[in-house]
């Protein structure tokens, strides 16, 4: 690896985070919002592994391990909440979850 420096990986990580953030902001389908959250977590994972590799320190890689654990738990609970919302409202669009609107 000569011409691909760690900065390229960091820029890629920021790009993935930004794309996921854009998805969270502009989408109204809550399923795709959850997928975009996963994309943001993946961007952070790439940055952590890059720092871990450059600093020759395993702590970053172990943090990625824990982030994956938390992401799996988060997806399971989030999708269960989504199913509960769908049972109640017959819709998974964010603008239909308006119980606390007024």
């Amino acid at each position, binding site marked *: *690896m000569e011409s*691909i*420096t760690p*900065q390229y*990986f960091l820029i*890629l990580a*920021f*790009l*993935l985070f*930004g*794309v*996921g*953030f*854009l*998805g969270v*902001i*502009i989408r*109204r*389908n809550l*399923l*795709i919002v*959850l*997928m975009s959250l*996963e*994309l943001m977590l*993946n961007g952070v*994972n790439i940055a952590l*592994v*890059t720092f*871990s*590799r*450059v600093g*020759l*320190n*395993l*702590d970053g*890689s*172990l943090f*990625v*391990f*824990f982030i*994956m*654990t*938390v*992401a*799996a*738990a988060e*997806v*399971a*609970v989030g*999708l*269960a909440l*989504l*199913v509960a919302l*769908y*049972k*109640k409202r017959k819709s*998974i*669009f964010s*603008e239909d979850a308006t119980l606390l609107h007024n």
Partner: protein
Amino acid sequence: MNLVDFLFLVFATLAVGGGVLMIFSRHPVSAAMFMIVSMVSVAGLFVLLESFFLAILQVLVYAGAVMVLFLFIIMLLDVGPEGAKSSKVKLLSGLAGVVCFGILMVLSLILVLDSGPACSSCSVWPSLDEKNLVLGESLVFSTSVKSFGFGLFSKYMLPIQVAGFLLLAAMVGVIILSKKYVGEQNPS
């Protein structure tokens, strides 16, 4: 251009392209398919960063478990493509999203490219030292699974137990959330 550069370009393009197509696809099933492309490319990037164990975990957890869960929920809810609604809200949220994305990108480029003299080693890849698991107080980066196990069961003993408890709590929470109680009224 050597092989590693080429692979980095391919995986980076697939990861970001899959993500962009995911957030702009109208149907949730195609969004899930683009997400698989993105996740597997991220696994390929982990391989380029010599974290082989994390690459395997990425494929197993994201492309395996999480994606199956998403597709199962899509099947269960039977959601169709998103209809066009209220263009004013759409315009406003799109504007907010693009502005936030732009600010994030500018700040990240400033941060990454202008790293200064303090980070003189940030643009080279240090060679790996596979002999020691521990150097002083810190764990040494290594490609082997053995060093992962050593780190998880020595320095990160408490966090891994908390993570296990978190998974248990998530499982119990999901069961309670999706349980049908006896005598529950039909929601209508």
